């Protein structure tokens, strides 16, 4: 099964490449693994319980339970294909568009099941925004990029209201000063880092509760990355942020809690400091010390 999916490291390959034996050799063995650390928080915004995700026959996420606290930045790390992005996309049902994807378990936003029949996915995505790996502004003006969400959800009625929301969002995303003179120019004409901040401005324009970020800095240079990281820290005061990242330094810099995924399993979760200085699980330790990943 694993050999069918190139993204899932087969343990044999790991051993051959790195000369270390992992504590869990196969996905089968990992199935009965219990997550280390406290998955709960005092004031959860989203709670995931016993989530399993299948892509056709591939068991991509295995029995993951995790709380996401209000106004915290939670980082999800792990090797490629470990399921961290898949889990993130479950949180605003972006996986709905994939026909072969099947999800079981429960994910709640403020105690309301987001996979409930009576929940409209449009409403969910207004409350749980998303920023993607590659900056993907619409091929419209900077202004229209930010104004799209509020107009779509009917949050603004007049030009003045729209202006206010657009300016505030750009301000919050730290982009307003740079673009205030060219709001009528295409968003695609900005630099990569500016585009990503535009996407963040677009996401916060609909006043979401949670912002999901799927490797938001992987296409950016270090300076642009530093700006986004600063921004994430500022946004934490108003929003809950889940960030998937490949960079452990980034996770250490921006997050308060860190969750480590491996082969579709949530291995360990805890305060970021503890995870990086004193991991409890052998797999976590191997990963953060750079033995594989």
């Amino acid at each position, binding site marked *: 099964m694993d050999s069918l999916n190139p993204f899932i490291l087969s343990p044999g390959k790991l051993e051959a490449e790195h000369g270390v034996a992992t504590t869990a050799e196969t996905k089968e063995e990992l199935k009965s693994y219990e997550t280390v650390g406290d998955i709960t928080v005092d004031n959860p915004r989203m709670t995931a319980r016993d989530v399993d995700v299948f892509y056709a026959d591939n068991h991509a996420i295995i029995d993951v339970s995790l709380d996401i606290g209000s106004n915290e930045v939670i980082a999800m790390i792990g090797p490629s294909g470990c399921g961290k992005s898949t889990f993130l996309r479950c949180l*605003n049902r*972006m996986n709905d*568009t994939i*026909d072969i994807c099947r999800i079981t378990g429960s994910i709640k936003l403020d105690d309301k099941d987001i996979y409930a029949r009576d929940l409209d*996915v*449009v*409403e*969910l*995505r*207004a409350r749980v*925004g*998303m920023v*993607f790996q*590659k900056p*993907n*502004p*619409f*091929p419209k003006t900077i202004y229209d990029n930010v104004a*799209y*969400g509020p107009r*779509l*959800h009917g949050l603004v009625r007049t030009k003045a209201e729209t202006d206010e929301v657009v300016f505030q969002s750009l301000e919050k995303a730290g982009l307003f000063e740079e673009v205030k003179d060219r709001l009528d120019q*295409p968003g*695609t004409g900005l630099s990569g880092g500016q585009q990503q901040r535009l*996407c963040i401005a*677009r*996401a916060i324009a*609909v006043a979401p509760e949670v912002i999901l970020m799927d490797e938001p800095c992987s296409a950016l240079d270090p300076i642009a990355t530093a700006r986004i990281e600063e921004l994430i820290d500022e946004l934490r005061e108003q929003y809950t942020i889940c960030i998937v990242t490949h960079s452990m330094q980034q996770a250490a810099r921006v997050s308060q809690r860190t969750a480590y995924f491996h082969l579709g399993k949530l291995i360990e979760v805890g305060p970021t400091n503890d995870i990086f200085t004193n991991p409890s699980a052998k797999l976590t330790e191997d990963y953060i010390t750079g033995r594989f990943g």
Partner: protein
Amino acid sequence: MTDSNVSNDSASLVKQSLRRRHRSEKRFKLYGLVAISIGLVFLVLLFASIIGNGYTALSQTMMQIEVDLAADKIDPKQTLDPKILRAADYGGMVKTALRKEFPDVKKRKQKKALYQLVSSGAAETIRNAVLADPGIIGTTQTFWVPADDDVDMLVKGYIDRDVPEGDRRVKDIQLAWIDRFDEQGRIEKRFNKAFFTNGDSREPELAGIWGAVVGSIYTLLVTLVLSFPIGVSAACYLEEFAPKNRWTDLIEVNINNLAAVPSIVFGLLGLAIFINWAGLPRSAPLVGGLVLSLMTLPTVIIASRAALKSVPPSIREAAQGMGASAMQTVTDHVLPLAMPGMLTGTIIGMARALGETAPLLMIGMVAFIADVPQSPVDPSTALPVQIYLWADSPERAFIERISAAIIVLLLFLMVMNGLAVWLRSRFERRW
């Protein structure tokens, strides 16, 4: 062997292979240049032959005759009733005028030859003049009337005076008369307005393409109105909404097959369904447009799907991530980005439809129709069918008119392709 030897060796090997690669690169470039040159040569030949044959159709030989508009022949009771004015025997007056020109022509056969000098359209010219201004009745007026197509051909130099009389369409005696007209300066080539304003005619000097142009425009309008919205909707559904299963696969395969069906088959289908079963009028641009829509639809759908596919998925993700519904994603983002490609595909399909003859033959648009159609349900013909019809006619004068009609058709196509280019650059957006 030392390390430096090894590297020297490989360096020279690389050099050798480099030379080979450069050679093959040059060769490849040359092939391309040769191919393009051949294409250009044929294009130039095509245009040269068409324009060379066709430009003479832009002028028409006219003759000046003096016609006695005797009141007792036109309107004996002086009613000035247009009905009576229209019914008068203007052909007879033209004949009288010609006889007066050459009083020594007495034999019946010679008279007939004399009458053949001017077109039967001469009577029409005089009738129109009289109807426009009945005040000229009772006077003698000079008129420039179209010459017969044989005279036209002679003046344009297509008829050789040196061949024996028996093999010539213009007889010796007619040559003498024409020369006399010429000496008096009463024969002249003028701009052939009739070619652009008239419908079809059996007489080449009266035949025009306007009827066919209007027929083509109506046909294409019907085709555009039907095939663009249906094609774009079908492409959107198949690409953005339809589940991927055996049924949609089957539909896709069949659309691709339909694009390759010979166009005459669509003509037969149109004959069976639109005319025989639905009872729509024969020879009408409406039916022609319906048939050509059937033919164009697969092209439009395939082009539109390709345009939709080329929209990056990140745009869809961005829109969905903002909470746009599937339909809003398509209408707000995907469709505007795919529109230039869709329009280009549609116009290319329309250009193909414009040049299509076979299906129109099946639904009767090949009939001889002299009137310019007033609506899409009037009997009509289309440009390529008109060319086909004229190519079937024996008169020498139709040859130049065929080429001229082809020039008009090509201009039509160029305008449409230019429109496609303009639309694409107008709507294209970068992402």
